[in-house]
């Protein structure tokens, strides 16, 4: 892995191990001990993962379910910490990971926009100046002062996504969100992502829509059982994955 002045994400020799507990109480642990069964076992979600992403690059993380894509994304966002190796980033980062995680049903759309934008790391002034754009993008101006619990699931996702793509970031992590909303809204989202790309933002995308990612990203990293199988041109990566 080559780290330069323009490296945005540096993942070096990362291992992430999860502990699987087979017992959930003291009693169960005792019974397991007496019977000689294992109390817990470990499982390597990622091992020996090593790569660097340059600023402005768009990278797709590919792999089947359980290959470690989402774990890797969580390590890059800082939610999880590696058990070995290091993950380092340069600049501000925000994840479009399960958008709407910070939404509270009892607050109005307006209050939720402020709360979520702040959770994603924006300051009050930044939110004030972007608030109109966020609402306009979501196309739910009429309902912005209604409590979010009265929203339809589509409206909810629109607003949540809109907040996320308007955050001021250098690195954007995108996890399977381009599958939200109806087709016109999806197209709009994709357009917005391309705008961010053109503005020089670094993008890390996880999606099962292989055509879309090979179109959007220039580089693909293929994971299998927590190991990097291929790292290179996105179209080649998709071919490799389909060949598996």
């Amino acid at each position, binding site marked *: 892995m080559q*780290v330069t*002045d*323009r*490296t*945005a994400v*540096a993942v070096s020799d990362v291992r992430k191990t*999860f502990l699987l507990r087979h017992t959930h109480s003291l009693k169960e642990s005792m019974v397991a001990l007496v019977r000689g069964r294992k109390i817990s076992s470990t499982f390597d979600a990622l091992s020996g993962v090593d790569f660097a992403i340059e*600023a*402005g690059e768009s990278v797709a993380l590919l792999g089947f379910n359980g290959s470690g894509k989402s774990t890797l994304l*969580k*390590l*890059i*966002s*800082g*939610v*999880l*910490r590696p058990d070995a190796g*290091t*993950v*380092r*980033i*340069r*600049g*501000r*980062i925000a*994840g479009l*990971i*399960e958008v709407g*995680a*910070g939404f*509270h049903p*009892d*607050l109005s759309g307006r*209050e939720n926009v*402020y*709360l979520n934008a*702040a*959770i*994603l*790391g924006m*300051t*009050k002034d930044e939110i004030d100046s972007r608030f109109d754009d966020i609402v306009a993008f979501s196309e739910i101006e009429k309902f912005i002062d209604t409590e979010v619990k009265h929203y339809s699931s589509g409206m909810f996702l629109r607003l949540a996504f809109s907040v996320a793509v308007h955050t*001021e970031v*250098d690195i954007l992590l995108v996890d399977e969100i381009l599958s939200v909303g109806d087709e016109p809204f999806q197209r709009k989202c994709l357009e917005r992502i391309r705008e961010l790309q053109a*503005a*020089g*933002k*670094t993008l890390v995308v996880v999606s099962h829509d292989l055509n879309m990612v090979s179109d959007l990203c220039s580089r693909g990293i293929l994971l299998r059982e927590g190991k990097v199988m291929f790292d290179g041109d996105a179209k080649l990566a998709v071919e490799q994955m389909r060949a598996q």
Partner: protein
Amino acid sequence: MSVRAGDPVPELVDPGRGLGLVDVFRRRYLLQLLTRKDVQVRYRGSVLGWAWSFVKPAALFAVYFLALGVFLRLNDTIEHYPIYLFSGLILVNFFSESFTNSTRSLVENGPLIKKIFMPRELFPVATVFVAIVNLLPQVGILLVVCLAIGWTPTVLQVLGVLLAIAIIMIFALGLGMLFGAANVSYRDSQNFVELIVMVAPWAAPVLYQWNMVKDVVPDWLFTIYQLNPVTSAVNLMHQGFWEPTTSNGTVAPDTWLFAGIGLLSSLIVLAAGQFVFHRLEGRFAQDL
């Protein structure tokens, strides 16, 4: 702010590591929003709304006053017992609420902690701030009553009351971070906290007077009793609100000395809480 040629290049940093409570201060706008959210949604959907924050302490006060003040006749031996009782009780309630809620705050915000990285200390800190919002109107009532019966506050008394609130805030936050971090992996923690909270009003001179303890326990035990930060804070409340409204009421000796020690030990608890929190934080997202 994307990285362009000519811009100063920001350092490569570890995305999941922060400076703990210092980061909470840096993101005070988010702290403010989180606190406001909790205040807003707390009694949402109830008819009485925030009146509940008066009803609960009022009911507790009435029960203690009847049982201890009237039936056990503390009303006769402690001058202005209602003021004595109320000034200590609201402080202990503040402690209990901050401690319980901050212990639970991490588990309650689990979905968020698992998905987005932010300084996790924000959650216990926000709950303590919500508890302060709850406390202030009660202090207001106490203030009005004391002024009405002829209390002329001195600067020292007011400083003492503020110090009392600060001690409890720091102590409860430190304990909340300690038990809250443990609670992520072991839910025994929150049950243990319930136990502590149950004992809290009895472990400080809230319902009875300090000399009742001094008369029956050996000196060393009484010193330990006074070393409890909650005791020192309750004494400050009594010194501020109750003592000056009575003719011969006296708070425990060395109030200021023990207040200083109480503040110091609260700060030590906070440092310990932050240390443990930091050690366990790496596991939060996977254990929740």
